[in-house]
């Protein structure tokens, strides 16, 4: 047995015995729950425990649900100081922006950001206000996605996936009649 064979045999044996398993897991289900919580806290009625409120199931039954058990394994943190401040700023701005969404002036695009759809019928002062508010909101949303990644040990490469999850959540939680953009780029109404 020559030296190369010995090395190859040794590597094979090491590989067989000392098998290393690398699990790569992106916590999408937990992030969806976190996104729902954030959207509720900022643009909803502030009650973030939607899971407990949505089906009326008794408390002991919830322990049987896989999703709940799964969520308990990975806890997504959306309450760091930076995230709290962002949520507060977005929550205060929501009251200013919602009337523009109801009028169809502003829509939610498929990147989870706001977009001005039309300025018809809007006074000049309001035009300036909506431009400022949309810019500020989008800036905060992008910062929020980065902060959530950082707070939960996810890398910068995961930020687009977080943004995508939030994009769907913003649309799901939109009020009826708000302009929303589908994944293929078409605009319609929620």
């Amino acid at each position, binding site marked *: 047995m020559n030296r190369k064979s010995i090395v190859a045999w040794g590597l094979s044996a090491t590989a067989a015995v000392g098998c290393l398993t690398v699990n790569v897991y992106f916590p999408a289900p937990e992030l969806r729950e976190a996104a729902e919580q954030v959207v509720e806290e900022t643009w909803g009625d502030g009650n973030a425990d939607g899971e407990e409120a949505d089906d009326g199931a008794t408390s002991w039954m919830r322990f049987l649900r896989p999703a709940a058990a799964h969520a308990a394994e990975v806890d997504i943190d959306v309450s760091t*100081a*930076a995230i709290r401040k962002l949520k507060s700023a977005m929550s205060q701005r929501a009251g200013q922006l919602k009337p523009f969404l109801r009028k169809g002036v502003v829509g939610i695009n498929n990147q989870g950001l706001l977009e001005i759809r039309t300025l018809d019928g809007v*006074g*000049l002062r309001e035009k300036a*206000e909506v431009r400022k508010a949309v*810019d500020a909101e989008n800036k*905060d949303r992008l910062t929020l996605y980065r902060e959530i990644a950082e707070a939960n040990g996810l890398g910068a490469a995961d930020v687009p996936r977080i943004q995508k999850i939030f994009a769907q959540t913003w649309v799901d939680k939109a009020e009826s009649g708000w302009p929303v953009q589908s994944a293929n780029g078409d605009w319609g109404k929620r």
Partner: protein
Amino acid sequence: MSSVLHRRFARWWLTGIAICLASLRCSVVLAVVVGFPDEGVRFDDLAGQLGDYAWTAKRIVVRGEIDVAEGVSSGTVEIDGEGLAIHDPGFERAGENLRVGGSIEILDLGEESATLRVDLQIVSGELLVDKLYVDLSVFPVSLEGRVAVPGGLGKGDRLRFEDVVVRIAGVGAARGAGEWALDGSSGEVLGTLEVDGLPRLYDLLYSVPADQRRYRIEDRGALTAEIAYRQDAAGVYALTGAASLSGAVVAADDPQLRLSLAAAEIPLALGPGVALETIATGRIAVGESTILGGPIGATVFPIEVGPSSIRLTEPVRVPVFGGAITVSSFASTDLHSADRQLRLALAAEEVDLSQLSQSLGGPAVAGSLSATIPEIEVGGGLLRSSGEMIADVFDGRVRVRHLRGDDLGSTVPTFGFDVDFEAISLEELTRVLSFGYVSGVANGGVRGLEFVSWGPVAFEAWLETIPKSGVSQRISVDAIRQISIVGGGASDPFSQGIMRFFDEYRYAKLGFQCRLHNDVFTLDGIEVEDGAHYLVVGATIPPRVNVVSHVREISFSDMVARMATVTQ
């Protein structure tokens, strides 16, 4: 920012002149037919297109006389317009509900030329330039000067103007000459700017309610400038000239900042179209001001301006807190773009920590601060630095390194740095902090310290005593109680038994390691035994007192509450 606003304003008021011309043309054509009786001729619900701009007018009344001879008209008319509106396709620039009055002298109006002298006042209405909204009833505008459209109205594509003066009530005036394409795409303006109401200009440009502003301009101040502004059809612009500023005082809503700009002579060279060889010198003279709550002496900053850049030509020493800070190598580039960068070097010498700490609202800390920071770089929302600050304090030394910032300009700007403590006298430290009495010498450090909204959000810190000959290691009952509270203890073991006869104890070790992450504060002792974390390990000679932490993790808000208890 200022160049963008300037460009937008230039395009706006040139467009304003053009709409006035267009309105007049419509009136004149009809006047030849109907004449102008004394009560004037009234036109209702006019509409038209001027280049990319759509305009409408609810009512325009025209009075005056126009002579028509061989196809060329001349004369003077007075106009009174109400409900005028104009906007570009995207409402980037728009005016609505404009009330315009004044006179227009027709110097030459024919098939091939149109030259007018205008004297108009816009006394109410609204203007929008992107996100800038102006209520013209608060900031009425007047416009006078000679304007012409070579080639005639409807044929010519450029607006030429001479001796034009635009005044904004309470703010100042802009005078200029030049020409501009009627579609707003390109042109050149040479002129002067005279602002004698800086606070009003601030109100105009920063449309946030006064009670929500962090900064204000206190004095009227004066700004004058000679400017040349050019823009080509591709949108490449250059703003050149020189500006002088005097008597401006910028103050924050707390007494920590008050900056007096005594005088400034600043060359202008802003925009991607500025010639690369452009270079000029100037100066910024700062009067006696307040920064971080402390006074700083008058200082002159000599500057050199290049294409969209500015730099200090020599180091500047600023007296502050009994010492001085020297700013050198200051340079900022790409000022016209969002990619602007700033680099500077700082050095501090003999800054009195007692003055500094008290100005910041803390207890008097005897000592001095020095710093050598060869590079601070700011750009792209980030701040990075090299070098270190050294504070000789508490008979030891504190080093601050890796000053950094992230997400600058966002809702949650983050600042951070690392700290090392070397041979700090706990006796001096606890005396200043009113933390009971602890003697001994300690080393320690903080890594990854981050602040959001001036509150710490992350760090890893440690402190441990080091034996030093000639220095005793003793701790008072008060200090033990304080540490006990911070560590989660509640009962008072010193109220009974033999312990009540002692005021202080010897200790062998004192220290901790702690960590803040995601609002969870973790506190570990200097020694661990059977799961108990020792914050203070008592001396072997009785009476012996150990302080043990049993709850390692608590929320940071609870820890802050504990700290508040012991510092009260």
